[in-house]
C-alpha cells in the first residue's frame, strides 16, 4: 500500500483540531478523545482501504493520552508519520509497527510533558504575565492611554510568539522527521532558558512591587512593604497565595476589631 500524502490542507485540518485537544478532557482518558479527533482525518487517509484497521486505529488513539497542549503538536506529527508507515506495511511487520507506535506515543507524551510544562507553564507564563503588568505600570507612569490594553497585548505577545512557533515547528518537524525531531528537541538548551525566564520573573516581581509601592503614601507603602515581606516568608514556607489572602483578611478583621 502506498503512503498517503500530507497536503497543506490536511496539515491545517490536524492543526485546527489540535486546538480542541482538551475539549473533552476527563480524568480517565485525559486528552485521548481530543487527540483522536485531531488525528482522525489522517487516520482515514492512511487506512481508507481497510475499514477494520481504521476502526482499530481510532480505538488506539481514543485511549488515555496526556501531555502538554503544545507538546501534543510534536507528538501528533510523530504519530501521524508512524501511522502512515504502519499502514504501508502488512502482516506481522505492521503489527510490530503498531505496537511500537502505541508504546512510543505513551512515553513521548509523558517525557515531553515534563519539559514543556517546565518551560511554558513554569517559566514563560509567569514571565509573560509580569511583562504585561510592567508594561501597564510603564504606561501609567508615562501617561499613555489604554494601560490595560498594553498589559494584555504585551503578555499575549510574549507568551504566544514562542508558543505558536513551537506548535507549528513541532507539528511540521514531527511529520517530516518523526522521532529525530524529538531527539533534536532534547539538544536545545531548554534548562538555561527556563532558569533565565524564572530569574527574569523574580526581577520583574521585585521591580513591579517597587513601582507599585512607590506611588503609595507613607502608611499604605509601609503596609504594602510588610505584606510583601511576610508574603515572601510564607510563600517560601509553602503557604499558597490564596491562603495568605485569607490570613490578611483575618488580620484586617483583628485590626478593625481593635479600633475604638
Amino acid at each position: 500500500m502506498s503512503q498517503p500524502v500530507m497536503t497543506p490542507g490536511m496539515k491545517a485540518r490536524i492543526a485546527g483540531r489540535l486546538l480542541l485537544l482538551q475539549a473533552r478532557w476527563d480524568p480517565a482518558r485525559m486528552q485521548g478523545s481530543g487527540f483522536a479527533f485531531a488525528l482522525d482525518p489522517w487516520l482515514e487517509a492512511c487506512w481508507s482501504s481497510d475499514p477494520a484497521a481504521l476502526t482499530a486505529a481510532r480505538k488506539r488513539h481514543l485511549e488515555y493520552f496526556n501531555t502538554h497542549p503544545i507538546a501534543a503538536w510534536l507528538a501528533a506529527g510523530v504519530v501521524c508519520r508512524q501511522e502512515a508507515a504502519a499502514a504501508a506495511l502488512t502482516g506481522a511487520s505492521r503489527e510490530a509497527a503498531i505496537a511500537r507506535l502505541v508504546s512510543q506515543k505513551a512515553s513521548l507524551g509523558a517525557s515531553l510533558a515534563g519539559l514543556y510544562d517546565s518551560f511554558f507553564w513554569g517559566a514563560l507564563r509567569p514571565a509573560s504575565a509580569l511583562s504585561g503588568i510592567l508594561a501597564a505600570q510603564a504606561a501609567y507612569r508615562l501617561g499613555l492611554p489604554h494601560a490595560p490594553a498594553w498589559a494584555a497585548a504585551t503578555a499575549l505577545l510574549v507568551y504566544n510568539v514562542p508558543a505558536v512557533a513551537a506548535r507549528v515547528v513541532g507539528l511540521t518537524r514531527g511529520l517530516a522527521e518523526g522521532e529525530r525531531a524529538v531527539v533534536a528537541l532534547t539538544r536545545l538548551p531548554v534548562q538555561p532558558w527556563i532558569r533565565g525566564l524564572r530569574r527574569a520573573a523574580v526581577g520583574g516581581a521585585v521591580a513591579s512591587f517597587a513601582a507599585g509601592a512607590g506611588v503609595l503614601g507613607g502608611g499604605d507603602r509601609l503596609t504594602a512593604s510588610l505584606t510583601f515581606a511576610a508574603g515572601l516568608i510564607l510563600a517560601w514556607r509553602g503557604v499558597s497565595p490564596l491562603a495568605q489572602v485569607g490570613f490578611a483578611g483575618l488580620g484586617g478583621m483583628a485590626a478593625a476589631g481593635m479600633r475604638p
Partner: protein
Amino acid sequence: MSAVAACAVLAVLELDAVLVAQAMVSRPLVVGAALGALTGQAQAGMLFGAAFELLSLCDLPVGGCLTWSAPVAAGTAIALASRGTSFSLCFLGGVAAGVLHSRAEAFERARRAATGDALVRRAEAGGPALGRALGASIALHAAMTFAVAAAVVAAVGAVDRAWWAGAPAVLRGGAAMAASSAPWIGLSGLAAWGLKRS
C-alpha cells in the same frame, strides 16, 4: 455592557483556559483588560486582572489540577464592579466564583469520564460522533461558567445592596485588607517561587 453580558463574554474567554487553544486569552490580565473596556471599568479591570493573575501564577495547570479558576474570579469581580458593588466585595465575590467554578468543573470532568466508554464505542465507527461530543462539552462548559458567574454576581450584588453598608466593621475591615493586600501577596509569592526554582 451589562453585568450579564460581561458574564457571557467571560464564559467564552474562559474556554481558552483548558478546553480550547490555551492561547492565554483566558488569563486574568487579558480578561480584566477586555471586560474592563467593555463595561467601562478599565481601572477595575486592570486592578482585578493583575491581582488575580499574580495570585494564580504559581498554580501550574498540569494534569487534573483544579484549585480555583482565576479567569472566572477576575471576570466575576469586574462584572460586579460594573454594577457599582464595593471594591472589597467584588474581590471576595471573585474568589467565591473562582472556587465554585473549579468545584463545578470537577463534577463536569467526572461526568465526562463516566460517559467516556459509550463515546468510544460511538467514535470507533467514525462519523461526526466525536466532533459532536467535543462541541457539546464546550457548550456545556461555557454554560456552566456563565451560570456560576451570573449566580455569584446576583448573590453578591444582593448582599451589597441589602446588607454590606451596615455590616459589622470587623467584617468590612477584613474584606478590605484581603482585597488590598492581594497584589502584594501575589508579587511576593511569585518572587519566592522563582527564587526557589531558579
